[in-house]
């Protein structure tokens, strides 16, 4: 932008500033995704597939019809919740990547508690499942946060180790104590009962888990940007020493942020069990937790931005089946694209403040 010859008053300049940084926050990630798509196109053409046909099919599989939109939004629901698991601790400057573990433990807790309430009303069972899943997930990630705070254990490594421990506990219980004897080839917990399944949003095939996710994002946004607690989180994220100096309870901030993060991912597990599978089995462990990390980084850890980004990534996931059937590409194609987007988004950090048409006006 050219320096304006007309002297602007302070108000207008401030608004221009907000507008410019807003435009930058949208433009840079978009450029990164576009760049990743171009590299992905080159990649599939090396694999002998027409890239434009691939793009076309991906669009059709993700957003091309009402049917694919429903598929996309159904997949976006757990991604929104697992992304929150990464985005909330990120406000404190922590990199938590154990959302998959909290999801698995949450789903297991939900399936287990439904078995103890055989005669309760569906609403009671659903509420109990959600509470159990959130409590289990919260404990799981709060453990990583607590270890960081009290013992200085790196939370990134600890949370990832907890994923593998969660999966081991999950397998142990699903193959043992909680196994439905009727599930022969694929060990599962007993079905939670058709009456207890989460219903769909009227007029669609999308389950209510999507609404849970959106509500959780709005609440997280209010917590981070509109409360004293959230302000404390952001101060501690900027400079822990300064936060301690002014007397902020850093330990409490870490534990609560990690607990809420784990609760969100645990809820994702409950939603998958109560709305999609009806029981806990290996189908739960498909990597929503890891894709959630990517969603959070793409959204720059802003809870409201998580919603559209999760829909975009849900769409990419939804189109995977179509790429497999029509073009014979392996199911890992989606993982390759996700990895490329992740690399591109981190590389694009360089572009902030450097895009020629969005440069700051010098006073």
């Amino acid at each position, binding site marked *: 932008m050219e320096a304006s010859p007309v002297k602007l008053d302070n108000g207008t300049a401030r608004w221009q500033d907000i507008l410019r940084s807003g435009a930058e926050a949208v433009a840079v990630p978009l450029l990164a995704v576009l760049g990743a798509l171009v590299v992905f196109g080159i990649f599939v053409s090396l*694999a002998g597939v027409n890239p434009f046909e691939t793009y076309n099919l991906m669009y059709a599989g993700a957003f091309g019809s009402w049917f694919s939109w429903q598929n996309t939004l159904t997949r976006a629901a757990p991604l929104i919740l697992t992304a929150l698991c990464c985005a909330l601790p990120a406000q404190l400057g922590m*990199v938590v*990547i154990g959302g998959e573990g909290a999801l698995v433990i949450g789903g297991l807790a939900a399936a287990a508690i439904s078995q103890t309430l055989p005669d309760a009303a569906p609403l009671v069972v659903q509420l109990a499942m959600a509470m159990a899943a959130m409590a289990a997930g919260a404990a799981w990630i709060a453990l990583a946060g607590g*270890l960081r*705070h*009290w*013992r*200085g*254990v*790196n939370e*990134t*490594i*600890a949370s*990832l*180790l*907890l*994923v*593998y*421990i969660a*999966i*081991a*506990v999950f*397998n*142990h219980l699903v*193959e043992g104590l909680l196994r439905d004897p009727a599930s022969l080839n694929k060990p599962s917990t007993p079905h939670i009962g058709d009456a207890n399944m989460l219903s769909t949003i009227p007029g669609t095939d999308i389950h209510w888990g999507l609404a849970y996710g959106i509500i959780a994002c709005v609440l997280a946004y209010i917590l981070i940007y509109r409360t004293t607690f959230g302000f404390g989180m952001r101060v501690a994220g900027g400079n822990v020493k300064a936060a301690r100096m002014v007397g902020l309870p850093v330990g409490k901030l870490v534990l609560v942020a990690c607990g809420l993060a784990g609760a969100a991912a645990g809820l994702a597990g409950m939603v998958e069990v109560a709305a999609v599978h009806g029981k806990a089995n290996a189908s739960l462990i498909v990597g929503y937790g*890891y894709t959630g*990390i*990517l969603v959070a*980084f793409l959204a720059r850890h802003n809870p409201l931005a998580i919603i559209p980004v999760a829909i975009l990534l849900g769409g990419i996931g939804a189109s995977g089946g179509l790429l497999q059937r029509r073009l014979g590409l*392996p*199911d*890992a*194609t*989606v*993982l*390759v694209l*996700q*990895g*490329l987007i*992740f*690399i591109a*988004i*981190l*590389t694009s*950090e*360089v572009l*902030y403040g450097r895009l020629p048409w969005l440069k700051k006006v010098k006073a």
Partner: protein
Amino acid sequence: MSADLLGWWGVPLAVLAGAIRVSTPFLFVSLGECITEKSGRINLGLEGTLVMGAMSGYAVSYLTGSPWLGVLAAGCAGAVFGILHALICSLPRVNDIAVGIALMLFGIGLAFFLGKPFIQPQAPNLPSIPFGNWSDNAQVRDSLRINALFLIGVVLAPVLLWAFRNTRWGLILRTVGDSADAARALGYAINRVRTFATAGGGFLAGIGGSFLSLSYPGSWSEGLSSGQGITAVALVIFARWNPMLCFWASLLFGGAAALGPALQSVGITQGYYLFNAAPYVLTLLIMILTCSRDRTLAGAPGELGVTR
């Protein structure tokens, strides 16, 4: 004593044999990560590098018929990932932990994509050296068949320790890792040193991956690695950035990972999945015991963000 009468003694024997067998990938990844972290950067992407190495090693071994070419290819694939990590990290404002996570996911995805055609065919495996031929017990003989890659790792650990302490390269590496300012003042190109260190680390991690697909378990599948890469990264912290301690720690972790299958072999199947989690629980416990919130760890490279 015949093989059938070995009975309960089979458990410690199987744990020992398993420790040697299972520890090899831990050993290579941790030695590689040790080099990288000495330069002041952490590469969390070694899990992806490990899987990528396993796939490319197996594929090249299958296509050329030579497992050692496979090992070389795995190392090169790992080095390419290391260079990628280093190049992205050398950009301003880019966080090395986040880049590691991205490369972990990308490496796993790429390996699954390219490795699809190699799940079925059987590639030639790496040779093992029979050290147990003096015994007429089949179980003992089987346990003491030690893979050549493990022996290379055994030699590599003290060599690295010596090189860190006594060579010019080792000194440059440690200077860059301990104080970037001092290294800059001495005129060393920090990014170039770190790129070499990360590429070397990736090379070793790739070789660690090739052990998985070419020796034990000895075939390529998508479930081949379950966190060995990330456990090895944690192990370096536990080993205080000392290659010899990395070696002993790898043996310990290999033994922990071999506990479940060893108990299963004598008929204890209860808690099989929980025993599988033993290395992760052990890693976590050791990190809890050895880390502290108040001080940086002894021996930690000064520029390393992960311990601050």
